[in-house]
């Protein structure tokens, strides 16, 4: 919920050095609940869906950590085969339609599709979190820094960033992924995280350039505040809300990118479920039924749509506040 909080405080910077950093002086900071109440219905639904997805992913992870004792089926169990837990052969069948036992039916080797989708959301959540963290911490810092200090540092860093952005993103990602013989969630998240840095750097730099010329920064300089203190106390806090709303849209992009990699068989390896590799597996069965394709498609699309909607909403909200200054 930190996103909502920080976006709520946006750029209400009161001028000059100490005053702005004194936490108590922040004008009526809105609680996440108040922000939620302000949302139009569509944005409320989108946020609820996102919360549900995050909850589902954490629940699935907790379930695996507890050895599958929570009420969620085993995503790896082939329900038509021998079940070591019960010592019996299962009665399930491949590609069952939806039923009370299997909400989203079963896949081509009779595993429960609902459990696989919920477990698959962990992959998307991890990739999105790592990407956003890399983007904001490294990209955001670099961008804020070079927009503030300018000079040769800026030239060098931005040249590097521009070269990475000169590649078609997916092609560069594929080339980087091809380096690794073993691809697991950590490697995929790190590579995608690394490639997330450049766009955040650009956004942060553009904002930093504008903020560095504002009165309160000039005032801080005039009273002799150390540059590092200006950077961390004046500039970065004012860029953060913009970066956070950018991060929602960025998360949507990397979830699609991870889905694409999984779909191509170049992300997490089977049998670990992810939405992309479920789609790749189930597309072979579309002559029989489209339903095993529909469920992961729905989850992927709804998640991306929700992130885009909520991100857009926060961006517009920030823009209105920014212009009111």
């Amino acid at each position, binding site marked *: 919920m930190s996103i909502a909080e920080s976006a709520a405080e946006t750029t209400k910077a009161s001028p000059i050095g100490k005053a702005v950093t004194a936490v108590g002086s922040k004008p009526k900071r809105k609680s996440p609940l108040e922000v939620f109440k302000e949302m139009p219905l569509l944005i409320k639904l989108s946020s609820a869906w996102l919360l549900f997805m995050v909850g589902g992913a954490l629940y699935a992870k907790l379930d695996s950590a507890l050895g599958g004792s929570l009420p969620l089926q085993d995503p790896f169990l082939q329900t038509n085969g021998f079940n070591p837990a019960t010592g019996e052969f299962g009665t399930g069948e491949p590609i069952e339609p939806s039923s009370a036992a299997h909400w989203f039916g079963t896949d081509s080797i009779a595993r429960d599709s609902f459990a696989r989708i919920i477990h698959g959301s962990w992959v998307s959540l991890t990739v999105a979190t790592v990407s956003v963290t890399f983007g904001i911490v490294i990209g955001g810092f670099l961008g804020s820094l070079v927009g503030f200090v300018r000079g040769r540092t800026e030239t060098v860093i931005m040249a590097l960033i521009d070269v990475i952005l000169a590649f078609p993103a997916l092609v560069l990602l594929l080339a980087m*992924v091809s380096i690794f013989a073993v691809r697991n969630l950590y490697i995929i998240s790190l590579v995608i995280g690394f490639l997330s840095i450049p766009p955040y750097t650009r956004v942060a730099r553009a904002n930093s350039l504008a903020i560095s010329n504002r009165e309160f920064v000039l005032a801080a300089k005039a009273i002799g505040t150390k540059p590092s203190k200006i950077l961390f106390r004046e500039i970065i806090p004012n860029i953060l809300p913009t970066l956070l709303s950018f991060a929602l849209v960025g998360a949507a992009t990397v979830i699609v990118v991870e889905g694409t990699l999984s779909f191509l068989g170049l992300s997490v390896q089977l049998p670990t479920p992810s939405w992309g590799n479920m789609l790749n597996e189930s597309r072979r069965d579309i002559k029989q039924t489209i339903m095993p394709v529909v469920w992961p498609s729905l989850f992927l699309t709804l998640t991306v749509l929700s992130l885009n909607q909520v991100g857009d909403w926060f961006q517009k909200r920030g823009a209105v506040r920014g212009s009111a200054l």
Partner: protein
Amino acid sequence: MVKVILSRLARLVATILAVTFITFIMTALLPGDPINAILPPDAPRDPEIVAQIREEFGLDDPVLVRYVNWLGNAARLDLGESYVNRGQSVMGEIKNRIPVTAQLAAMAIVFAVVISVPMGVVGAYRQGRAIDQATSAASQIALSVPNFITGIFLIWLFAVKLRWFPASNWNRWDKGIWANFRTAVLPASALALSQMAIFSRLVRSDMIATLQENYILSARAKGLNDRFILLRHALRPSSLSLVTIIGINFGALLGGTVVIETLFALPGLGFRLINAINSRDILMVQGITVFVATVYVVINTLVDVLYAFVDPRIRKG
């Protein structure tokens, strides 16, 4: 104008050099001995043969020497030979497969423009009305559907259920235009959907801004009819930003062809890239990556120059 072109050209060369260097370093520093990709896993590792192969591919030279050699060859359009399919030149493969990818990309852009321009114009003209809200909502959703999902559903509907178009396969031009078109329609449409959403949003917002200009008001005052104003006066300035966004999105489109070609099993560059990655055919991955990135950089520069050429404010500034 000449100055603009020259500075863009200098930047183009610098970017291409940097792009080739990064690609080369990335693939040259990878863990694992390339010899394992060249020789089949079960082949006996005769030290003499291994030494000969290492010599042939120059694997023992320092990285920088290898880069300079490779760059020299690349400048003569020689990107080396496949590690896995011995004797197959990387450039030959690219030449063989680029027509498929280029056709898909071109068709996708044409589809997207043909549908999005009327959508955007109508949306701007009827701003806030039901039809505008419907098209805006449709493009919001289209923007959030990944292209491989679009592709699977297109296959399901038009190839499995209706049997209008094939689900995979590719007919080259020499088999007849219609035969070729039939195999290209579904993949190109899958690529076009998200582009269409982006373009129509752009045209709509551009047109809304343009329609508030004074010269539109004066055209109205002269009594010109709405259609004439929309198409002749308002659409023209918007086409500039459309060209720019096509250039910017070209990279995403090239990435998209990788997925779509794999989904439809089309003999294009993207599918070959995935094959090469799966067989750890490093030189092929390197060659295709450099080629695609270079095309992308060149197209972006062309769009830049074209933009300067069309818009006098940039040309003089």
